[in-house]
């Protein structure tokens, strides 16, 4: 064993031990035990330590993998708009409470976090694992919007935008459910999201839907919903993070009650689409219990968008196909 390796091994031991006893002191010890500057002594070239495990690394998290060429396209884009949030009347002690059953999601929920206009990180803080095709689509959409000519999408045409966009908007939705089904009723776009938990007894209607087909099952108290078969490609966010019609969304939905009187739904969405992403990746959203928002404002986009004279683009342009 080389002197370097012995040294680094001892440094790791010291750092770990000190870290358990006292993080601050551990860091200091780790720093004292760090190798001298200029790298290891010459001689047999040692294998580089794994990321985060080198001498002096202490308890630091491993560095993220380097960006791919496709991801660099995303990081070079101008940043997305920061969305605001209209304040909602607070839920009080007089308002109905969420049912005690952790599998009972019924009631009114509201996405009380600012809208992510562009999904820039996955739930672990990593860059979305786009393919070159995915990066180019997002870049094309962002640049077109920056030039004042955003592309037409489902939302602009008053069509159902798919489950991810539909949930993300900061408008209340109601959940109703039975043993073999769950339905979301949204204020925005007067949308619906239908989930069958038992296609044999409670089949989804036939046809290819804008919202896709969603089949769910329970894993413990988490409802796992797989959505596939979309009638057209989806925009997963305002800036156009894409999902092709053959893409798949897996939504893990659970009700979280931290005992502070503010239960929320947590929905982790796994995005799978080999055309646009090198591997499945995850985002997470939370939706606050808001039983004091049961009356929805009317959303009648058809009044404007349905104008048969066709002059409804509002400045949006048709996107050229991939």
């Amino acid at each position: 064993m080389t002197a370097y390796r012995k040294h680094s091994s001892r440094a790791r031991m010291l750092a770990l031990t000190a870290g358990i006893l006292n993080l601050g002191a551990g860091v200091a010890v780790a720093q004292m035990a760090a190798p001298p500057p200029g790298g290891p002594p010459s001689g047999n070239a040692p294998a580089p330590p794994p990321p985060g495990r080198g001498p002096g690394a202490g308890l630091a998290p491993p560095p993220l993998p380097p960006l791919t060429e496709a991801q660099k396209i995303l990081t070079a884009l101008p940043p997305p708009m920061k969305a605001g949030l209209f304040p909602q009347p607070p839920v009080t002690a007089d308002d109905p409470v969420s049912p005690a059953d952790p599998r009972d999601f019924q009631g009114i929920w509201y996405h009380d976090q600012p809208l992510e206009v562009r999904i820039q990180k996955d739930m672990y803080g990593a860059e979305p694992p786009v393919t070159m095709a995915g990066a180019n689509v997002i870049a094309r959409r962002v640049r077109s919007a920056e030039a004042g000519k955003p592309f037409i999408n489902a939302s602009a045409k008053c069509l159902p935008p798919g489950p991810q966009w539909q949930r993300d908007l900061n408008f209340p939705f109601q959940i109703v459910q039975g043993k073999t089904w769950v339905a979301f009723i949204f204020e925005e776009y007067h949308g619906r999201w239908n989930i069958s938990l038992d296609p044999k007894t409670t089949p989804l209607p036939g046809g290819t839907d804008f919202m896709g087909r969603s089949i769910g099952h329970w894993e413990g108290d988490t409802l796992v919903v797989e959505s596939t078969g979309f009638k057209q490609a989806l925009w997963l966010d305002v800036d156009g993070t894409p999902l092709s019609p053959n893409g798949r969304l897996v939504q893990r939905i659970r009700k979280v009650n931290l005992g502070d009187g503010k239960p929320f739904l947590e929905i982790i969405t796994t995005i799978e689409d080999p055309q646009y992403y090198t591997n499945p990746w995850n985002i997470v959203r939370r939706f606050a219990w808001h039983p004091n928002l049961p009356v929805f404002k009317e959303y009648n986009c058809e009044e404007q968008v349905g104008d048969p004279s066709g002059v409804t683009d509002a400045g949006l342009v048709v996107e050229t196909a991939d």
Partner: protein
Amino acid sequence: MILTCIMQRVFRTNIPAIHNWFVTTGMAGMVLLTICTPAHGQATTISDFEGVWKMAKPSNSLEASTPVVLTAEGRKALAENKRLRSQHKYDDYDITISRCSSPGVPRLMLTPMRFRIWQRLGVVTFDFEWNRALRQIDMRGRPTEPLLAPQMTGQTTGRWEGDALVAETVDVSDRTLIDDIMPHSSDMRVTERIRLVDADTLEDRITIDDPIYYAKPWGGVVTYTRQPATPFFPEHVCLDRRDTAARAMRGK
């Protein structure tokens, strides 16, 4: 009149024609009793309209069961609608047909397709198969402000009178029709008495009060038959159907 509880239905069974205050939780198989106890001395009861419904006799018109007496302004507006209809200029008087705009209140209650009713958290929600349209009745008894902008469905508040739900709708946009031809002004007030005639029959007695167009209130009764319970309607996207049909007609 304030009820001393919160009405919170948990589940519906899939068995049609059960009308009582016992609902079965699908999950645990327990029977969950949901009762709202009126304050002492109150005679009010609450009916359970939840389920799937459809008009017993489809009709595009609100068939009047009382005389319809138009004012001069009302006669003019109706004549104009008829003229535009004869010329197929639908977008000039009926943007539901031309644009899939919400038929609003009361016209949504004339839908030939199915609808579901939910009674949750103090609000009655009508969940329509046609275009996934929605209308709601706020039963919470809170004071309301006039809407900043009128809506096709206006703003509806309701209360119980015996076993009937009495709903009042105001602030209805004048871009809707009462049915497929009858006009209304922005001053229209719609009163509905909704009740179960029997376990499988729902009735909506609709009264139109619009002194600008009608010399006296008038109305009709619409009857609905309970349908087999289903949690899902097919996804109905009116604009997509309209545009698909238009493309087919153009041969594209």
